[in-house]
């Protein structure tokens, strides 16, 4: 899975996520993102491209969060679409992942 990545003063920004994050690609997403996150504890994910997420997709996001926390880092996400937000709220992910409106807010929140 290909992502766009950018490093701004030690904050790692990932964008260009797949449009759909479901059981068919969640494992691939989880492993591919884990590879590029080594030694990068401060991460921002741009969710604007994700139009649909399911429970497996949520699981992949939680795995990413846990990995970063294990490194003493943090995960911030922004530009979450409506369906994704509804599912996050259903499984209470909004309580464990910082969700911000814009890329600037997300970067500034570190």
């Amino acid at each position: 899975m290909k992502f766009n990545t950018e490093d701004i003063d030690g904050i790692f920004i990932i964008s260009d996520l797949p449009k759909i994050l479901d059981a068919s690609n969640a494992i691939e997403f989880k492993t591919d993102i884990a590879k590029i996150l080594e030694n990068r504890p401060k991460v921002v994910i741009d969710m604007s491209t994700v139009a649909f997420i399911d429970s497996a997709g949520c699981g992949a996001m939680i795995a990413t969060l846990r990995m970063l926390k294990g490194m003493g880092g943090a995960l911030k996400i922004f530009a979450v679409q409506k369906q994704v937000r509804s599912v996050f709220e259903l499984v209470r992910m909004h309580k464990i992942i910082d969700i911000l409106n814009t890329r600037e807010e997300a970067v500034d929140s570190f």
Partner: protein
Amino acid sequence: MTKGFNEMISPEYHDEEIPSTILVVDDSRVVRTYLQSHLQKEGYVVSLAKDGKEALSMLSEDIGIVLLDLWMPEMDGMACLRHIRENYPDIPVIMITVSHEISNAVDAMKYGAFDYVTKPFNPNEILALVQQALKTRAQAQRLRRVEAELARARDHEISIATRIQQTLLLGGQPEELKGIKVGDLTIASKRIDGDFYDFFMVQDHCMDLIVGDVMGKGIPAALLGAAAKHHFMSVLYKLTRISGNTSLPRPEEIVLTVHDEMIGDMRELETFFTLCYARFDLYRKILSYVDCGHMRTIHFHSATNKCSLLQGVNMPLGFPGQDDFKEILIPFENGDHFFFYSDGLTEAKDTKDEFFGEERLLEFIQNNAHLEPQELCDITWKKIVDFSQSETFSDDFTCVAVKIDLPETEEKAEKSWKLETVNDLKELSRVRVFIQELCESLGQNAMDEERIKMVQIVATEITTNIIKHAYKGKKDKKILIEAMASDEEIVLYFYDWGIKFDFSTVPQPVFDGSKEDGFGLHIIAHTADYVRYSRDNTGKNCACVTFFLQRRA
């Protein structure tokens, strides 16, 4: 309560009239006349007998007390005492004995003699004993009268409670609901339990049934049962008519509202009641069930000829600290029976003190489920009477049987769709396209984009579950999705032929970020309006979900 009983006791019983004739029984004429003269001097009427045999012939209710010599030729004092105790339990007997026979006199007291005196005796000692015995007798007699009065008052209370039960607690059978047949039976116990039930026709395809049992007995329990029924009626009315809701209030909402309205009073009265709230939705073939500590309802499945037990997780109403009640949804099929009952059935005892019990009841219902509901109630009563060999129980006997008896109808859905696919996660996007297209074809007002996405996520989760769990490790297996839509709702059926889905193996979701999986079912349950799962005899699994359309809500 105590005050009420006292008021019912007539004043004439406060002073008991005790006959003052004293029967003196002694074989010695000297002793007889000696006692006669002393007692007559004090105003007592005295009768004399020379032995036990003669004494017995003279005994009557007019005798107030007996002075009885322990040793006599014709029937001794002991035998005579036993006879008096058996036939005239109220008459006190004072034994007369000589000093070397004291141990026998003590034995006599074990057999119910009031006291004894030893010869030679002091007349004052005898008089004091006689007075004391008469006073004790008067007290005992008064106690018995009071007890009789109490029993009368209790009977009176029971007759009032019975009337309350018959008129206020038991609901009449619903007049007409196509597709459902009902039977009921109540046999009041001697004490009245406060069992209650009622039926509410809430929609043309929906019947609500409440079955409850108030803790305690008698009038207080009966009145609380009546009050509870009234609360359910008014809450139903309030939540539907007054609030202007077009959709029905959920059973869990109704139970919570009644609980909130009644908790204050119940806490003050230190009581509670158990309850089943059951809504039979004939259109969706779903029982919505809120159980609050009631006996477990028996569900007979016509498809398998087997019974299962329904059990909720809620505490009885009146227990403090409850801020929500959980409702469970149970799918049913045509021909299924539901049997609701009070503890009077399972706690009926046989002559060896053994309970009839849930297991026996379950088996009995299973074997007799071919009967009509009313017959089923009646025959259950007969069975339990046979078992306990008694027609009177310590608890009320209440049962309600509901049989699903749907007429064969034409298909209600206006449109239907079908998608056949295989157990490959790559197919998930195809499933979503299928959902998208059929939802859009319902017209613009039916579902907005967000709602369609919610249907899509449920479809994704169910299909993923089938692939990952039902067809675990297998390839090229079929998944069939059918959809039907009416003006009111869209119903999706997901069929697979994999292993049976077992709810009990699904862990509760953890939301603290420590677990990456286990959210699928949670998402399904909180997104669809109705969910049910069944497996038929051929090993075909069906997960069925319903979504209401917007124009309905």
